[in-house]
């Protein structure tokens, strides 16, 4: 037979576990609020069973998911469906911005082949990739595909060319290779644009 304090401890432990995605201070505050609620209710209703008080307080999972949604970082495991409030602080950038940065990095480097042209292109690519990953407009799978094709692939190919000098010899083959790469970037950006979430 569990004692009252066992039940309360079990309940709070469950809330703490379910709310593990919350920042620590936010989680401690929630536990303090619930602890206070239980103590005050017990003082006001001495006859009430502890199980009844906990049942009225509600399912620890519901409380934790509400806390996640209210804290503004509940995009990950929230079940409350509070999509409007959750992604408040990030991903505000217009979805065109990362796509344009990722696509234009290559032609920029083609037009300005001498330093600091390629350095700017590289910075575009990195910034575009970060903005793409933090955006709310795409799923994780779409982000991964987008970053692989529009940022990682060009970086690797260009680095390989530069290191080995093994890139296409002569102006025309180099241009063809660049245009083919550009077509791939534009195609991927177009796909991401069409696949975005409002």
């Amino acid at each position, binding site marked *: 037979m569990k004692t009252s304090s066992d039940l309360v401890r079990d309940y709070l432990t469950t809330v703490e576990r379910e709310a593990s995605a919350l920042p620590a201070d936010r989680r401690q505050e929630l536990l303090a609020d619930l602890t206070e609620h239980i103590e005050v209710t*017990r003082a006001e209703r001495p006859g009430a069973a502890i199980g009844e008080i906990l049942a009225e307080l509600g399912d620890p999972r519901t409380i934790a998911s509400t806390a996640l949604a209210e804290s503004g970082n509940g995009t990950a495991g929230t079940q409350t469906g509070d999509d409007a409030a959750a992604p408040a602080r990030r991903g505000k950038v217009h979805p065109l911005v990362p796509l344009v940065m990722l696509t234009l990095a290559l032609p920029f480097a083609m037009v300005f082949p001498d330093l600091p042209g390629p350095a700017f292109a590289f910075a575009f690519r990195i910034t575009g990739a970060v903005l793409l990953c933090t955006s709310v407009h795409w799923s994780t799978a779409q982000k991964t595909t987008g970053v692989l094709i529009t940022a990682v692939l060009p970086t690797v190919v260009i680095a390989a060319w530069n290191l080995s000098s093994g890139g296409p010899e002569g102006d025309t083959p180099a241009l063809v290779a660049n245009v083919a790469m550009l077509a791939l970037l534009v195609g991927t950006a177009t796909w991401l644009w069409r696949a975005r979430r409002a």
Partner: protein
Amino acid sequence: MEPGDSTKQARAAAQLRKGVLEYCVLALMRDRPRYGVELLHALEDSGALATSQGTVYPLLSRLRRDDLVTTTWQESASGPPRRYYALTDNGRTALDEFTRVWPGFRDAVDTFLNTSPLSDGDPA
């Protein structure tokens, strides 16, 4: 796995409640500070706004972070000290604003619900 009618109704009520609950909580503090359990009792007595009690604490926490309410600890004659919630100036402004727009909102919904589509929409 089509949810039953009662589930649908409960979900619709929960959606409605989500939008108005924080203003009802603010309204409860309009005249004097209140402590958590006291706020929950008032919500429960209202019937329609009763919710899983524990979910109100994250809401109160956000209202505090958004500077709509402040909290102070006060000793009690019986039992442990209680955290009292009071409106800030921002909270009072938000409550006044909601109080101003709510009647128009309520009346608009009532108008749609009470108007018979036949009598209103018939061009003849």
